[in-house]
């Protein structure tokens, strides 16, 4: 990009992102700049960012794509130098991925997990944000701090702590259920496993989303509420008819990030794995990829799987963005 023939007048400071698309041409000043030096300055400032981006994002992605199109061919009995060679495999690895039922199952599990986590987490985040925004709610600053606190706890440690809370021998919940003579559910089994993982994610993520939604609520001018009250609106009516529609863009944003996070669930199931026997090592898509790459030493298949997951994330992201775009536009009309 540094090779682009720049004019001395191309170096113009722009306003606070007002233009968004401001090209050098559109903001060319009427008189020549007093100094020509420094026009390459933004490129120099971007060197560290772009170098790291190339080295740790572009090159790895390219390498993953290259690997995904190759395989190892073993000659003879696979011993000696040159017995194993990387050869072109075309879309062979991809057709394997699509036929791989283990990966398919891991994607389905991630969807099931997301169906529990996302509505619960965002529902609670919205509820808490609305409650925080209620005048005369007591202990709101304390509650805001506490609900946000899990954000500070590393995911793996949150999962370890909850893992112990799920263990019948040490769990306070099992203790209480036992006292009342109630049956204790096995939280590490089958369907309950989804709820166990979901609870950890909800615990860790609600506070952050609550803050995002709450910040949007705070930006609503109070005159709107005054007007609504004069028209006879109740608190509930104001929440449903004014507040929720106004914070809809924040909800869309948090939803968007939650979907991406769901596809990448890794930490919670990894943390609970040592505590239970019932968890396959390819429970989630990320675990399936890790398993393939490092436990089965199939980096080619793992790369193809990773590329498929990345493409699915992109398609899902752009679909969601387009839907939300249309939604907000209709909303304005």
């Amino acid at each position, binding site marked *: 990009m540094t090779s*682009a023939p*720049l004019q001395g007048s*191309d170096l*113009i*400071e*722009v306003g*606070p992102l007002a233009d968004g*698309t401001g*090209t050098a041409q559109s*903001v060319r000043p009427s008189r020549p700049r007093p100094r020509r030096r420094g026009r390459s*300055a933004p490129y120099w*400032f971007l060197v560290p*960012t772009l170098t790291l*981006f190339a080295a*740790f*994002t572009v090159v*790895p992605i390219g*390498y993953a794509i290259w690997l995904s199109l190759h395989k190892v061919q073993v000659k003879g009995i696979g011993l000696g130098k040159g017995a194993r060679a990387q050869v072109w495999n075309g879309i062979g690895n991809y057709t394997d991925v699509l036929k791989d039922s283990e990966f398919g199952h891991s994607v389905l599990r991630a969807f099931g997990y997301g169906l529990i986590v996302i509505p619960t987490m965002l529902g609670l985040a919205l*509820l*808490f944000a609305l409650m*925080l925004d*209620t*005048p005369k*709610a*007591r*202990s*709101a*600053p304390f*509650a*805001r701090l*506490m*609900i946000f*606190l899990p954000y*500070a706890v*590393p*995911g*793996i*440690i949150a999962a*370890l702590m*909850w893992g*112990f809370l799920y263990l019948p*021998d*040490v769990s*306070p919940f099992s203790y209480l259920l036992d006292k009342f003579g109630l049956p204790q559910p096995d939280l590490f089994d089958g369907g309950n496993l989804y709820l166990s993982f979901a609870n950890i994610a909800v*615990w860790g993520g609600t506070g952050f989303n609550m*803050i*995002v939604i709450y910040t949007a609520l705070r930006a609503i001018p*109070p005159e709107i509420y*005054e007007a609504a009250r004069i028209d006879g609106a109740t*608190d509930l009516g104001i929440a449903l008819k004014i507040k929720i529609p106004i914070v809809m863009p924040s909800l869309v*944003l948090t939803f968007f990030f939650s979907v991406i996070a769901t596809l990448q669930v*890794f930490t919670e199931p*990894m*943390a609970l794995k*040592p505590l239970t026997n019932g968890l396959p090592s390819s429970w989630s898509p*990320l675990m399936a990829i*890790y398993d393939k790459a490092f436990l089965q030493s199939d980096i080619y298949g793992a790369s193809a799987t*990773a590329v498929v*997951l990345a493409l699915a*994330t992109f398609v899902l992201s752009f679909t969601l963005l387009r839907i939300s775009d249309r939604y907000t536009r209709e909303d304005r009309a």
Partner: protein
Amino acid sequence: MTPLTLTADTTGRAATARRTAWVPTIVLILGALYCLIPIAWVVIAATKDRSELFSTFTFAPGSGFLQNLSDLTDYRDGIFWRWMANSAFYAGFGALLSAAVSAAGGYALGRFAFRGREAIFKMILAGVLVPSVVLAVPQYLLLSKLGMADSYWSMLLPSILSPYGVYLVRIYAAASVPAELMEAARMDGASEWRIFSRIAVPMMMPGLITVFLFQFVGIWNNFLLPYVMLADDEKFPITLGLYTLLAQGASQPALYTLVITGCLLAILPLIGLFLVIQRFWSLDLLSGSVKA
């Protein structure tokens, strides 16, 4: 950068409801309890010795905290503290480099118009969407070709670039560094580097500290990257260290008390940092994308 408080609530809204709003209060307290229970539990469980952990009521304090602490310190010649120091190094040094790189990149994108600006910006933001494992596996393979896998570099280098940090600094630079000041400095003959380091960086400091804190928490909490990159447990950060300790503990429940005490000690620095963030960061920055 004012800390967000409810006292800033508008009087117009407060005047209409004079009594305590009980439903919101109760909902909020229940939410706070839900979030506090695991933390309260880990604080109490860390005080129990091995037999108390399995025999006494889970919320009854035990008598073994100091013993647990010394057991943890003795475990494999104090490797726990080594993990803590590693985490502090990865997170501290990584976040510092990240803030520096974001400062330069975000400043360039926020304060200059140049060819390719929007394309570069969008490309970096798209980096957020790439699933971490899609990067981690080839990163590992490439770094091991360079002989750098399982090194401090393999943890540090991939953590430096933060697309979110660049994005945040871009907004912050555009809003807080006046073009007139930059122009005046140029007239006085200051170099672009001098303008950046002496004028822009001090003005962007609150934004840079926000980037540092976010990145610090992000690196400290990262699990996938060390799990993929590191094999030598002398280089483990605390997250991976405690995980491997638990994985061994599955066959030796005696290690459970060590894991629990370790969990408590590992979250204390972050809770401290979190309280700092609370006072420090601007929620407007956090939601910059929401309001746009």
